[in-house]
């Protein structure tokens, strides 16, 4: 359906329900939808499951959302970083649940959700604690573990430029999880640095086609 071009980040995150699963793009700060997360904090949804590569850095963005007690559960590959003190404290106090997923499996599980795949046999993590309790199978001489899709109610992602239809292009390694998350959530919200007229993006270079994007908002970001 036609993309909603929002006037600000608050409009872009309106209506996110308590209990939602929110996919949050970015790898470190590259591609991180900071303004959308800030707006989500103002919006107030709680009891969230957040799916993201990391679990917040410093005291802003995802870390601030966690610090407000809005997040029940984090699904990520790498929560522990030198500046992940907010998550660390909540985790040690037993106030947040954690599911650690290998980074490529995290991406592939979201891709499966977006691609209508019910489950897939993945070689990553076989024989490790992260495969404990999971179904395994030997196929053609190699052992695989069965992994299930991760679907979001909402995806918050950062992209570089959108056209007014909602087609997205990214910039350098800020692309990371954005294109995958855009396929895997019911409502996809993208913050972008620029919105151009429909037709201004080369159709060969569009990374996320408009069909995946529900709301776009231009935010002021350096670079």
């Amino acid at each position, binding site marked *: 359906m*036609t993309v909603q071009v929002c006037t600000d980040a608050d409009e872009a995150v309106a209506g996110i329900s308590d209990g939602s699963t929110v996919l949050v793009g970015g790898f470190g700060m590259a591609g991180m939808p900071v303004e959308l997360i800030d707006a989500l904090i103002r919006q107030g949804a709680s009891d969230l499951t957040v799916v993201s590569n990391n679990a917040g850095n410093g005291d802003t963005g995802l870390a601030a959302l966690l610090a407000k007690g809005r997040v029940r559960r984090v699904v990520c590959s790498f929560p522990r970083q030198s500046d992940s003190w907010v998550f660390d404290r909540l985790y040690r106090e037993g106030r947040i649940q954690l599911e650690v997923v290998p980074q490529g499996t995290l991406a592939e599980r979201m891709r499966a959700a977006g691609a209508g795949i019910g489950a897939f046999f993945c070689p990553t993590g076989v024989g490790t604690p992260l495969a404990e309790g999971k179904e395994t199978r030997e196929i053609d001489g190699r052992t695989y573990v069965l992994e299930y899709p991760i679907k979001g109610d909402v995806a918050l992602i950062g992209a570089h430029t959108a056209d007014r*239809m909602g087609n997205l292009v990214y910039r350098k390694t800020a692309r990371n999880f954005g294109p995958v998350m855009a*396929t895997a959530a019911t409502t996809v919200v993208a913050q972008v640095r620029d919105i151009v007229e429909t*037709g201004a993006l080369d159709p060969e270079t569009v990374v996320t086609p408009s069909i995946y994007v529900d709301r776009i908002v231009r935010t002021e970001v350096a670079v």
Partner: protein
Amino acid sequence: MNPTDSLVENPGRGPLGKDEMAAIVARDIPHGSYVNLGIGQPTRVADHLPDGSGVVLHTENGLLNMGPAAKPDEVDPDLTNAGKIPVTELPGAAYFHHADSFAMMRGGHLDVCVLGAFQVSATGDLANWHTGAPDAIPAVGGAMDLAIGAKKVFVMMSLFAKDGSPKLVRECGYPLTGLGCVDRVYTDLATFRLGPEGATVLETFGIGYDDLAARLDVPLAPANGAPR
């Protein structure tokens, strides 16, 4: 869409022509939908989408926002639709490869898919890829992917085969394309909504409901305005 969702009978006119059927399908596609039009008759639906419909066409060979068929001077061998007919692109188009294109389809991102059919069962089973003839060479293309992928699957077909047998049936006799996947059937004589309980008649053309029901052998009910 039939605005009241109560049965409308049009017995005082003839059955729908192919272009009229296409126009009615086009009318029922919501504004701004992402739509895949199957090869053959469904392709005609594009010609009946009003200006400003906001409908974006997908072709499974890797393009969103496909434009009309190419005029002779626009033909580009690198740009075709799924029927291998030269087409054009519209502003806001995007190209992608086959795995991404069918991920889009299979993942349920398209709003509507319009397909032809040999047979449809009243509960939405679709048979449109194989006549079951013993000497036929099987060829499925994207039919099975399309059948199960879109949020809504519309079928366009004549209601009766050339031998007079109905194509809306209790159970498909031809090999299936998909199970319980068809939401609506648009035919020359009537349009139907399908569901687990059977077929609901939304509108008739050149025939009344009772005559129609007498010619079909499926669980059938008239639309009564209840919410869909």
